């Protein structure tokens, strides 16, 4: 059962990373325009280089 000593912290850490990533996306307004973002991916503008 010693393996638990690694597994539990790892599982908590991975979950925590997900949580932090989610909080980051909320804070940086990434859910303001879900429909637009879904369509923007189809546009070929800025395909060769990112928007400055």
């Amino acid at each position: 059962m010693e393996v638990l000593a690694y597994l539990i912290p790892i599982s908590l850490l991975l979950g925590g990373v997900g949580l932090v990533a989610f909080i980051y996306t909320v804070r940086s307004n990434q859910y303001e325009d879900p429909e637009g973002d879904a369509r923007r991916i189809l546009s070929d503008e800025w395909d060769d280089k990112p928007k400055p």
Partner: protein
Amino acid sequence: MTVQATPASAACPGCIAAPAEPVRPIPEDVQIALSLPGIHCSACISTVERELNAHPGVEDARVNLTLKRAMVKAAPDTRAVDLIPVLERAGFEAHELDPGALSATQSDKAGRDLLMRLAVAGFASMNVMLLSVSVWSGATDATRDMFHWISAAIALPAIAFSAQPFFTNAWSALRVRRLNMDVPIVLAILLALVTSIWETALSGEHAYFDAALTLTFFLLAGRYLDYRTRAAARSAAEELTALEVPRAIRLVDGTEEEVAVVNLNLGDLVLVRPGGRMPVDGEIVSGQSELDRSLLTGETLPVFAEVGLNVSAGEVNLTGPLTIRATAVGEDTSLHRMADLVAIAESGRSRYTSLADKAAKLYAPGVHILSALSFVGWYIYSGDIRTALNIAAAVLIITCPCALGLAVPAVTTAASGRLFRNGMLIKHATALERLAEVDTVVFDKTGTLTSGAPELTDLGDHSRGDLQVALALAEASSHPLSQALAKAAREAGIKPATLRDVLEVPGYGTEGLFQDQRVRLGRAAWVDGEDDEQTTAWLAIGSRPPLRFAFTDSLRAGATEAVAAFRAAGKDVILISGDTQGAVRALAGKLGIEDWIAQALPQDKAAKVQELSDQGRHVLMVGDGLNDTAALAAAHVSISPASALDAARVASDIVLLGNDLSPIAEACNTAVMATRRIRENFRIATVYNVIAVPLAVAGLATPLIAALAMSTSSITVSLNALRLR
């Protein structure tokens, strides 16, 4: 929208490194918000952004497709008026929005806050559930204790953070000695935590950390759904308000300046151009025109306006520019006085108790009594306070109002989404439930059943030559009657006659010279016609007796279908209008409405609605004018079209976004279905309780059973709600 959140980062990075120049006050960039109702695809997004960014002065333009809006950051002297033609050339309809009225939707702090709590609760409950599953599948002794302690370490801070909305709600209810749905929730969560820690400390078998967290998670999901539905409605309603940018033109020593309506003072001279709406109450000091009062009184006939006439805020100026001296501004205008009528009538709505409240009233005391009884019973039977408390906690958790908390929001979200796609906006939380009970429908006429735009009725009665002259005169004016005449004549293939010296006389009509005879098209008194009840324009050619052109208010699209659908559903349809007998009788006949009232004052409308309510009927009021606001507020539930005045929209529960009236009848069916689903959901939740509660009271419930009962009931309820979509 990232533009607003980080205004500084958009500036050039080189500026920061530049050596300190003498600091000049840099004029601030302006934010312009545009409403783009027509955009729908990725091509639209890129075209709009390209066109806007190509416009000189525009620094950054970003389209939000979900809200159908564009936010533009531009140099200080850029104005929305310059940008709208750019988009119209590219084929997009665009309207300016008042950024001030939009501010609330942009900083959506409450929604983000709930989402964050939901995320934390979800994260914690998944982790704790993993540990709990290991315990249920056979972890014992030290391993079990360690898992319980880790669960406690995750659950305590997570609940302290994410369950805060429930704590505050429950506390505010308890402080005034009342019970709401949140009191049993908080009690269940706290009791579960306390007994679980106690059990863990004594190396006990059952801990309910996972249940406390899942409970929080599901309930927060319900709250969030509820919030989202209302936020979507609020932002759309705000957009309607923002479409009317409250500006007026003030004359100071003969020069025009554009000011916000709130900054107008008593005695100010205000210029109102043709097509503009009166911003304040006042008296005309110069100019002649005609006024459209239909939004205030329901009259379709334009009123002649000349120097000395008193005008009220909200009236629309039709033909000539008018200068008015403000006699009442802001709160004192007749527009605002009407709002007082609304405040008196408001009581009708507050009497309604929502299904959720009714359920909570039955549920909350029941659960507390049941839990207390099992505690007392087990304490007497076993004499062990620990067992008794454990069982009391299990009872509270298993009867958790999880499904109840989701039952209503899940259904209203699904139903509101469906109605929104049909072009209806549900503003009030209980509007759907009230709409389902409607048995009498009261319609306003002007602007509701009719579109408010006139239509020529007797084109065939006139000779071609007369029509050519009439068309030539009509095209020289922007008066609604002229435009309707011109449209009808053009559609009939008439070509305009050649006239000389065509001149519009504001308030009267247009005149010109046709083959050296004077020709006039305008109001009866000016052309020597006879004034009658109907909407008419008269044409005089030389010394011949004047010709009469009759107009009727054209029906709004879907009006016939909506009325027919209501009658087919066995609902009483009543028409109440402030317009003249003749006009109302004609329309009622056309639509097959037997019960109609004409020349009704605003008070009469409200009184009629009140009278119907007192007879025990549930009235749906559909109206748009200021004269309808009191009736809208007095009715059991009310609907107004998007073209209605702000005051009317505020007073109504549902706003119709499109021009078509037919979704109204459909909305009633959706509401009935939604209410049925809500009741079904309550029944499902009750069935789960009926099965699980005896187990809990008997002391047979384990955390596994609690988790199963809770999750399955919540998921069934949500799936049942989704059937509405």
